[in-house]
């Protein structure tokens, strides 16, 4: 009777603890000015991406050769209708940037989700099952780390045919090793802990131990890693778009806009400058939040 009720007690305890820990992390985060600035930028970028069709002043694809290479509004020859200027076929830079935010965030977040799913599953398996499976998985990690980052994504996106889905999957499948490593290390450390031993002694199945006892303990590392990976994936997507294996020409992306700016660098400085600033602000914001999140989640610091 007592044994049967024990797991429920542990669960209830975990539920009671979770919101308290959450609010402690939140308090720590909101005490850091850098984290607040980062979160504000992210809210703006996210809002822009969600509301893109309604807030963009122009259609991002509308061309007008009459208005090509209009400079930003504060320079000579600027037009208030096109605050950040237009490109070589007269498309509005600001509107294209607003729409581009969608691709960047979408790719960043979804690639991270794919990596987390693959990495956490393999890390748990590798740590918990161990043995030959562990050796094989860690060899795979070794092999993926032998390629310069981006190179594999570049080759496979091009080979599979560039599309949004390919980019998300390829970036997701080339970024899972860190999760696998961290989760595996935590599982190895936790496996020896008394409470896991106790759970096993009570006859609780491996899957349930993983889910209830091991997984929640790896949570904070995964949160930090995944935040930082969104930033990495946004940079990687921009780089792929820049190198010409992006999601195609159907939708504007920041990387693509910068690539265009490279071609017209001596005529129109604004083409590459503003989309780059958008990437910089977004990635910097995520990095700041991720870094402060690490400090807040790590009780040892």
């Amino acid at each position, binding site marked *: 009777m007592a044994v049967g009720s024990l797991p429920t007690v542990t669960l209830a305890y975990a539920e009671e603890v979770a919101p308290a820990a959450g609010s402690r992390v939140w308090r720590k985060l909101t005490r850091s000015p850098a984290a607040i600035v980062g979160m504000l930028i992210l809210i703006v970028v996210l809002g822009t991406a969600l509301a893109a069709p309604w807030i963009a002043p122009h259609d991002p694809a509308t061309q007008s050769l009459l208005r090509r290479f209009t400079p930003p509004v504060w320079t000579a020859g600027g037009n208030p209708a096109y605050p950040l200027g237009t490109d070589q076929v007269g498309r509005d830079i600001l509107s294209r940037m607003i729409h581009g935010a969608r691709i960047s965030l979408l790719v960043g977040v979804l690639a991270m989700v794919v990596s987390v799913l693959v990495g956490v599953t393999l890390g748990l398996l590798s740590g918990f099952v161990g043995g030959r499976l562990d050796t094989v998985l860690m*060899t*795979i990690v*070794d*092999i*993926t*780390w*032998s*390629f*310069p*980052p*981006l*190179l*594999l994504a*570049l*080759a*496979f996106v*091009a*080979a*599979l045919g560039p599309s949004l889905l390919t980019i998300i999957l390829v970036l997701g499948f080339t970024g899972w090793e860190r999760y696998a490593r961290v989760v595996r290390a935590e599982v190895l450390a936790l496996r020896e802990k008394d409470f896991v031993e106790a759970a096993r002694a009570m006859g609780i199945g491996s899957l349930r131990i993983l889910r209830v006892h091991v997984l929640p303990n790896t949570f904070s590392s995964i949160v930090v890693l995944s935040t930082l990976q969104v*930033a990495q994936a946004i*940079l990687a997507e*921009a*780089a792929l778009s*820049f*190198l*010409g*294996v992006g999601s195609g020409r159907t939708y504007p992306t920041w*990387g693509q806009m*910068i*690539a265009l*700016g*490279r071609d017209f*660098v*001596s005529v129109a*400085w604004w083409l*590459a*400058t503003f989309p*780059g600033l958008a*990437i*910089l602000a977004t*990635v*910097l914001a995520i*990095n*700041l939040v991720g*870094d402060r999140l690490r400090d807040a989640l790590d009780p040892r610091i």
Partner: protein
Amino acid sequence: MTKFLVRRVVRLVVVCVGVSLVTFAILQASGDPVTLMMPEAPEADRAMLRQALGLHDPLLVQFGRFAGRALTGDFGNSFFHRAPAFGLVVERMPTTLTLTVLAMGLALVIALPVGIYSAVRRGRAVDQLATGTVFLGQSMPPFWTGIMLILLFAVQWRLLPVSGWDSWASVILPTLTLGTFTAPLLLRIVRSSMLEVINLDYVRTARAKGLSEWLVICRHALKNAALPLVTVTGLQFGLLLGGAIITETVFAVPGVGRLIVTALRQLDFPVVQAGVFMLAMVVVSLNFVVDVLYVYLDPRIGLR
């Protein structure tokens, strides 16, 4: 030591086989190579070529053949240049390596003094400024940094060429781009490895002996921070090569990275495979050397 070396060599071989497997998979992922090679040819000719290339054999046999040829540096002919793909890559390797070594040098020149100083003055204004710059640097897309440098130095001030790799002046901007891409990461590593040793007992002892701060830092702290520093720097070389691909494309530097990017656009897969394989081999061999050196230089490990 011998046991360690043997184990390490076995791992090296396994990783090399893995790398060639991944490289092999690139062509498989692209679908039908024969259609890429002769898009306009009639189906009968394509079928003949498929037969001749052994594309009907089981994948394992095909992979064995690929790996065997890769060992001798034979990746087939470029679809586009009609020349051996391997030769095209080897020709451009020195350019890429020069660029990466120069950039690594520049990054070290920035990262070493700033990182050490920022660790010594931990939490002060200098440290916070350095940490802030690291964040900024790591959030900047390298291809954008490159274009901004072009805008300033080539378009605005007309001091340096926009692109190319034919004079010393044209080397400056690519090196600057790749160097500033690498410096923040190195700075972080220098700072944290210095912080790790700076409060240890022997450093305190050196201070207590009355040595000047400068001597303590250089002779005692830095010497012990150097080993992990060298290892991690060596391991970052892969990242640098990844950055080189982008930098070469921005500045039209005739290196391996640009070759791969152009070949990808032309779906010239033998060149892509040769390039990817060679760059991975650079990383693999460097990691191997660093690993072995580390054990050789640090007497505390190696007996494992």
